[in-house]
């Protein structure tokens, strides 16, 4: 061991914090090295000064003051805590676990409840504004709005027997953007049209009216799509007006 190495170990050597094997080596070195021995004396002197580093004698009044201040603080704290003692108990380790678990359960239950309820309402068609009874503008399905722009067509004159079968969705469709097209297709089902058989001449008509009844007679088939703004009007008679087999009121 050389002097720099010994010098590093001296601070711990003075208090016996060096391993026994090294202690012997240091002791041997100190016997033969005056510089390291001098350094050891300085360390020992500083160590002694530290050991004697006593505070000045404090008055008893200082201790009395500390005690009275502490006790006053404790009493004040206990008085202020009494109404909110239950709140403080929440932050005890065990109570905090129970509280956190209960809170987590409540959040989970609330999430499940919301998910279950949302899966039933509303229908995707309704969300997209396709459901006839849910006209976003507050108008009844099938009724053309009054006083709107150019695509407006006047209300038709119903002189014959009108069979109105309002479309009603028969099943609910799970909310999903991917299913919105299916909803449109479902509502377009030709099995559930709004059928309006009208006799243009004012005579009696029926759904099974024969096209041979006369050239004046026209069988008009109205199909209401899920979009209240779109209605398909189909003239199925061979005497139907040409040039406009289909009309659309889209854009109203």
């Amino acid at each position: 061991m050389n002097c720099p190495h010994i010098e590093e170990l001296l601070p711990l050597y003075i208090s016996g914090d060096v391993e026994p094997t090294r202690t012997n080596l240091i002791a041997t070195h100190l016997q033969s090295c005056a510089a390291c021995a001098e350094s050891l004396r300085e360390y020992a002197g500083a160590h002694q000064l530290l050991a004697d580093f006593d505070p000045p004698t404090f008055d008893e009044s200082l201790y009395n003051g500390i005690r009275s201040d502490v006790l006053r603080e404790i009493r004040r704290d206990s008085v202020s805590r009494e109404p909110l003692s239950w709140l403080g108990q929440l932050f005890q380790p065990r109570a905090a676990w129970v509280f956190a678990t209960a809170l987590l359960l409540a959040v989970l239950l609330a999430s499940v409840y919301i998910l279950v309820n949302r899966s039933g309402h509303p229908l995707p068609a309704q969300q997209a504004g396709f459901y006839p009874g849910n006209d976003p503008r507050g108008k009844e399905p099938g009724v053309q709005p009054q006083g709107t722009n150019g695509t407006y067509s006047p209300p038709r004159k119903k002189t014959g027997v009108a069979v109105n079968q309002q479309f009603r969705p028969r099943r609910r469709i799970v909310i999903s953007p991917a299913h919105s097209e299916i909803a449109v297709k479902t509502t377009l089902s030709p099995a559930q049209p709004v059928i309006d058989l009208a006799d243009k001449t004012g005579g009696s008509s029926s759904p099974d009216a024969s096209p041979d009844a006369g050239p004046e007679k026209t069988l008009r088939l109205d199909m209401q799509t899920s979009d209240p703004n779109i209605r398909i009007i189909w003239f199925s008679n061979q005497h139907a007006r040409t040039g406009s087999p289909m009309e659309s009121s889209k854009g109203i």
Partner: protein
Amino acid sequence: MDMTAEQWLPVKHLTQQPTSLTLLIERAANGDTMAFEQIMIHSQQKVMATTWRMLGNEADARDASQEVFLRVYKYLGRFKRDQDFFAWLYQITVNVCHDIAKKQTRAFTSLDDEALTALPANIDVKNADANLIRTQQRELIARAMATLPLKERAAIVLRDIEGLPTDEVARILKSSSTTVRSQISSARRKIKVHCERYLRRTER
């Protein structure tokens, strides 16, 4: 040097209050402020001395001691019976001193610095009054302590001044023995350098 509870507690209070410390702790933990006051009487001098050594001035030491006792009362319910009360008390004391020292920078300033400024350059140690020498030495160490980082200061106070074994110091500081040894070694080296001139003069 391993300190026991008997060494720690002022004897006069022990004779006056025959109730054991464990019982006092138990009663205080249940809200008995009288019992807690007895605990304070038993430990106030030690707490005050440690805080003064850590912070270097009476005002901070007083504030720290008050905070130590408030924390002791607050967390007495968590104190385990098989735990060493005084090691636990040291732990709280060191933590409080750390908190206070971080908040303010007046530790080891004010009075101590003024006194050190007044220290004569040539001290005739042999002819000086013993009390003056003691005061000068105290101020010298206080100034040296002020140069130490908080962790080294805590380690040196507990190991060299309070006289606790290194392992106990490591437990109190929640550190490893190796780290504490390193901190102590570093602190002693700095203090020795700081006190070198004084020590060489006294050896003459």
